[in-house]
């Protein structure tokens, strides 16, 4: 109710401003219509339809403009009468004040019939005030509510998560940002959080973090820039009084040794004192990176060392990384090869996986032979070995993509089109002492958008995903849409989506849906 009153008030103020000031410029649109859904199968397997609600809808309410050149307002509401309602309010007094307020609802479906679901409502409000050019003040408040049902993944007891949700998560932040023309700048912030739960007091928690950062360019040494960050905080369960304290500090120094070479050193230290495990875990990281740049190439290499000390054992990690990037003139072709590896020597008694060895190789190439045409590909290999438990995960991914834009101008306007497509192949293998698991997946998407003389908009898209070997499932979404703008501000549009999901290993796990959106709209502008 409060939200509706606020919206009405904003509209009235905006309309009043528009009438009062001859410099006011406003544009807006209203779309109303309906959504029709025809579906069969297991509702819980197709996340893409969780937030589609059947019925008549006020699909879109959009207002944007300024009452004078220094005061700007944007209001964008979507599906205000349906379960996926969303909104954004953006008010700016140029150079002084900026308010952004957003709201969104969504749901998660747990059962095949779609009757067991959980809802989230998320509102985010940020106000920034700039009294002068040296100081920024901002306040932020976020409220997330979660209500509804919950079902565990596999049949069994629900545990403390229970079979329903009724919780509110409040988060707030106050921030002071200071800066000077030389580049010196800093921020001090307070973050607070409180989780209230109407069903189980044990799930309630509170916490805060006070953090600060400071950037000090060219201090002491002309070519050296320093960045310092630090934070202290606490998280606590009011029911039991248990909590943990955290504190960390981070320093980064960037030395521009020459015009083409940069040296970067980073130190990070944190400590978490956990009253639940009665362990204080200290974390120290040292990172050194060097990069060299030439006209058409960049080379970088780095080494990192990390230690986790929990008073019982010290776990150390060493990391190496290196990359080379090359580009042709005007970036018509560019490529990059990057390799990183990380070894962890785990002496901690409480973790079972023990030592870990990671390595990752990324190769990518991008080409833009013409301004409207871009294409490229990526190949990546990630490998993770845990020798103490004889486990290895090995994953290959290959992606290819291409996009093309066409534009043609004539007397009646522009004829424009975008077409894009990408394909990703992934092969993930996983070996343990008790078994082997492999998932080979193919994901492809393609999109086409056409605008004809600013009158006709057409779109089509396809999404396809399949997972094979130890899974055998297919998922596809086909979408087509057409919109037409009449000359007097009115418009009409329609969209049709077909959803399909099949799991060939579990017979009951299938889903098919046909969804149609129909809308008529009116757009206006005072310009």
């Amino acid at each position, binding site marked *: 109710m409060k939200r509706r009153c606020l919206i009405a008030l904003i509209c009235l103020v905006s309309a009043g401003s528009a009438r009062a000031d001859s410099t006011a410029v406003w544009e807006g649109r209203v779309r109303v219509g309906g959504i029709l859904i025809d579906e069969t199968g297991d509702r819980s397997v197709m996340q893409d339809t969780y937030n589609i609600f059947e019925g008549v809808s006020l699909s879109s309410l959009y207002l944007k403009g300024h009452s004078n050149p220094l005061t700007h307002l944007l209001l964008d509401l979507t599906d205000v009468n349906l379960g996926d309602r969303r909104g954004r309010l953006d008010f700016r007094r140029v150079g002084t004040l900026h308010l952004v307020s957003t709201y969104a609802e969504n749901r998660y479906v747990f059962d095949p019939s779609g009757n067991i679901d959980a809802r989230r409502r998320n509102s985010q409000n940020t106000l920034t005030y700039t009294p002068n050019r040296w100081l920024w003040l901002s306040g932020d408040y976020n409220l997330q509510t979660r209500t509804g049902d919950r079902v565990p993944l596999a049949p069994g007891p629900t545990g403390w998560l229970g079979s329903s949700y009724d919780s509110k*998560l409040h988060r707030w932040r106050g921030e002071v*940002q200071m800066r000077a023309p030389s*580049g010196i*700048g800093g921020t001090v912030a307070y973050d607070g959080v409180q989780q209230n739960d109407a069903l189980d007091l044990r799930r309630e928690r509170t916490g805060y973090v006070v953090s*600060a950062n400071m950037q*000090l360019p060219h201090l002491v040494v002309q070519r050296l820039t320093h960045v310092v960050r630090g934070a202290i905080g606490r998280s606590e369960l009011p029911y039991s009084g248990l909590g943990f304290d955290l504190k960390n500090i981070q320093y980064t120094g960037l030395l521009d040794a020459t015009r083409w070479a940069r040296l970067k050193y980073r130190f990070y230290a944190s400590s978490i004192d956990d009253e639940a495990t009665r362990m204080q875990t200290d974390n120290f990281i040292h990172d050194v990176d060097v990069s060299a740049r030439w006209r058409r190439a960049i080379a970088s290499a780095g080494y990192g060392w990390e230690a986790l000390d929990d008073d019982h054992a010290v776990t150390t990690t060493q990391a190496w990384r290196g990359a080379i990037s090359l580009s042709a003139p005007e970036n018509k072709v560019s490529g990059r090869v990057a390799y990183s590896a990380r070894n962890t020597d*785990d002496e901690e008694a409480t973790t079972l996986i023990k030592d870990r060895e990671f390595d990752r190789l990324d190769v990518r190439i991008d080409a833009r032979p013409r301004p409207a045409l871009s294409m490229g590909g990526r190949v990546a290999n990630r490998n993770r070995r845990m020798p103490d438990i004889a486990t290895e995960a090995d994953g290959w991914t290959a992606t290819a993509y291409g996009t093309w834009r066409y534009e043609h101008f004539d007397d009646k306007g522009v004829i424009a089109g975008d077409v894009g497509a990408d394909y990703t192949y992934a092969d993930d293998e996983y070996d343990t002492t008790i078994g082997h698991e492999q998932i080979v997946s193919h994901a492809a998407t393609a999109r086409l958008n056409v605008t004809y003389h600013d009158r006709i908009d057409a779109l089509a898209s396809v999404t396809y995903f399949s997972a094979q070997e130890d899974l055998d499932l297919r*998922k596809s979404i086909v979408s087509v849409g057409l919109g037409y703008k009449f000359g007097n501000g009115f418009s009409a549009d329609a969209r049709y989506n077909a959803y399909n999901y099949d799991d060939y290993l579990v017979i009951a796990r299938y889903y098919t849906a046909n969804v149609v959106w129909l809308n008529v709209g009116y757009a206006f502008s005072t310009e």
Partner: protein
Amino acid sequence: MRHSSSTVFIIVVLASATVLAPLAWLRVARSDEPKPIDSKACLECHESDLSAMSGTAHDVSANRVVACTSCHTHIDPAHLEEPEEHPVSNPEHMRADSVAALCTTCHAHPHTLNMFERDPHQDADLSCLSCHRIHDNKHAGLLVDEQTTLCYSCHPSARADFAKSSRHPVEDGVMQCMDCHMTANQSKKQHTGSGPGETCVSCHAMFQGPFPFEHQAAVEYSTDDGGCLNCHLPHGSAHPRLLKRSYESPNFSLCMQCHSIPKHMNNQNHGTQWAGVPCNECHVDVHGSYESRHLLDPALESQGCFAVGCHQL
């Protein structure tokens, strides 16, 4: 002891700030850079740029917080007379690290600092202007495109992740990439936050803990790989609930990532009695328990599971 170490920490930070800030400010005072030219002088010739930035954070019409020379820092006064011979500096032609340094003179918040001090985008020579366009832009955050579309343009494999059967609701418009990436207040790891699952618990707060009985795999600071990510793939997965591995009979390989050592499927006391039974039949509170160090269901007590010499609650 804890309070004393916190006090020392705070004193060190405050002392550093107290000493370093005046030093930096003194350097500013000594600066002999030419005074910036008022934006009004620029707009006499570049009027179209004013309308292009109207209503954005970089709108120079208020002439208060930001001026043309905030970004075009090197400008020769002779430019006013001979613009071709004395061009102004243009961030679009600068190196990525130089652009980041320029932007952080105003935007000293975590996102820009992340970019400045440790970010793979910068290592790939992508500057702030690779994603943000200051002039003639009406997108939120002055991004060159709608956020998700922009990220997909360089990360097409992320689009494939979000096409999977289980995924975060990015494609639905409920979430955006930056809800998780690049905004962390304390950037320990690339792109995301540090601390106990900082990024994930900003929405999934109930899992933050601390729990009287923690599941070590879920505690980020004691497992290097990162708490939640031991079991979940944050973008998308072919398995339900973003699980990293299969949670299906008989192996439940998700849990067998770590628990193949105790061999729950075949042990000397129970033989193969529990083979094929979902782990959560007994271990109900896998994110951490308020009651059982083995994360067990208290209702099992009636079955004698917690008898002396067996599984203590």
